């Protein structure tokens, strides 16, 4: 019996047979994927262009330092910026340790049984719940049931709930990415579970965890709906000084300006968006720097 191969007709090394067609399909594929990438970039560029065009002339020092006003040329974001910083720091303070702790429990401690699987599925589902639902939850639990009122603490706790699932899931993935051999090595020299986790697994996973936290917090900074529901004030004239003060945030201030009839306020809203973007980018930068510090320390 002869070998069941199909012999090539000749010794040619140029594209013959069905190869030209296959190569063509490959290059069409390349075109489609490039187009998809360009479309996403183009959308971003158009968005930025539109916002900068309208908001650029309204950017001023006063925008950052002035309190809100009925006259657009005197209106500023100072109260909203302060509110956003309060909300985000408190959110981080609550959600970061709690999220990482939950992830450590689920990955390093919890037995793999039906209950932890159900828990896991629920956390994944929570990450997909629309943010306004968290707003309603915050309104119900923190503002009304705990009777905190429409204050910074209630808003921050609401945002913490919103960020928790994302932080937990990202942290779990970061922990899961640490090779089992590292844990074995540490157990092998007589370390307890906590020593293995604290000295090896967690430091190695920190860069990945921080990435997840950046994502979650970035989402929280831009969120408007949950805080609108859970009690950010539309018009506040003093910066929050503590947990129990009323507050507003940058997106809510932008939302307010957008809904005013005067075009000046709409342009001011665009300027506000630029400020929000700048804040987001600088926060991400800080996170990236922290992340690289940690990576350098683990000496992979």
């Amino acid at each position, binding site marked *: 019996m002869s070998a069941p191969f199909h012999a090539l007709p000749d010794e040619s090394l140029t594209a013959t047979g069905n190869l030209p067609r296959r190569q063509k399909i490959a290059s069409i594929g390349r075109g489609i994927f490039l187009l998809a990438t360009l479309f996403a970039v183009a959308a971003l560029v158009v968005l930025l262009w539109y916002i900068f065009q309208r908001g650029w002339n309204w950017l001023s020092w006063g925008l950052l330092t002035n309190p809100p006003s009925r006259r657009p040329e005197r209106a500023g974001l100072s109260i909203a910026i302060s509110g956003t910083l309060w909300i985000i720091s408190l959110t981080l303070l609550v959600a970061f340790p709690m999220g990482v702790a939950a992830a450590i429990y689920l990955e390093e401690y919890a*037995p*793999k049984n039906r209950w932890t699987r159900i828990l896991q599925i629920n956390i994944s589902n929570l990450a997909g719940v629309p943010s306004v639902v968290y707003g309603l939850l915050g309104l119900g639990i923190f503002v009304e049931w705990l009777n905190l009122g429409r204050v910074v603490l209630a808003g921050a706790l609401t945002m913490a709930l919103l960020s928790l699932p994302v932080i937990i899931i990202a942290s779990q993935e970061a922990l899961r990415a640490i*090779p089992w*051999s*590292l*844990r*074995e*090595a*540490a*157990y*092998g*020299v*007589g*370390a*307890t579970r906590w*020593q293995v986790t604290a*000295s*090896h697994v967690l430091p*190695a996973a920190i860069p990945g965890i921080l990435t997840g936290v950046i994502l979650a917090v970035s989402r929280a900074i831009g969120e408007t709906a949950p805080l609108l529901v859970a009690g950010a004030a539309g018009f506040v004239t003093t910066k929050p000084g503590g947990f129990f003060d009323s507050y507003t945030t940058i997106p809510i201030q932008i939302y307010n300006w957008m809904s005013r009839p005067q075009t000046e306020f709409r342009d001011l809203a665009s300027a506000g968006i630029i400020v929000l973007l700048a804040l987001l980018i600088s926060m991400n930068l800080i996170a990236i720097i922290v992340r690289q510090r940690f990576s350098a320390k*683990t*000496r*992979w």
Partner: protein
Amino acid sequence: MTDLLEQTDAQTMPDAASEQAPLIDISGLNVYYGNFHAVGDVSFDIPKNQITALIGPSGCGKSTVLRCINRMNDLIPTARVEGEIIFHEQNILAPGIDPVMVRRRIGMVFQKPNPFPKSIYDNVAWGAKVNGIRKGMDDLVEWCLRSAALWDEVKDKLDQSGLALSGGQQQRLCIARALANNPDVILMDEPCSALDPISTLRIEDLMRELARNYTIAIVTHNMQQAARVSDQTVFFSLGENRMGTLVEASPTRELFTNPRDSRTEDYITGRFG
């Protein structure tokens, strides 16, 4: 004095496996992974200050047995271990035994070199640190690295990452790390399978050196390695339902020259496995 000791060691080492007092006495060991009966009724002794090689075809349970000795199988959620492993008159598998203490006394070197992503110094020092040792760390690190025949190569770069070393050096670093808790026993799970022949020989020399002061159990796929390095060899095979069983445990020379069981003979002559 040391010379005298070394001489007696050298003289008693090769064929005296049966006469040595066992440091570890394994009897009736059964291991299950979920419903799978992975290791069936294994019993053998590991004599003090000797090298015991565990050989056998893939999947015969030799690594599983090795990992029972320092309770590493505890980390696998579905694993269940029955039987007795007597060490210093205590059953390692008994409920009151803390696996962390077991692992401190019975160190381990793994198949793939797995140094911590830390400095060479910290790789050795960490195991001692977690066990509460604070003083004399520099001396301890030097002593362990010397004992692992690595000191001369790394003494000028102790603060460099352990991962920057070559594969063979990494594995010797892992051995140094295991020594830092001054264990009685060192378990080695195919320590040379990821190494080149030269590095392998260096590790084997080191093992012979270490056997003066430590008791060593090594799992190996390499029969020549078992023959070269070990005093006693335990041969495992696959029984019914892919269950690993012990076929023969004998002094190495005897097992390789005059095997008692025909399955051992088939395996070592290369007719099977």
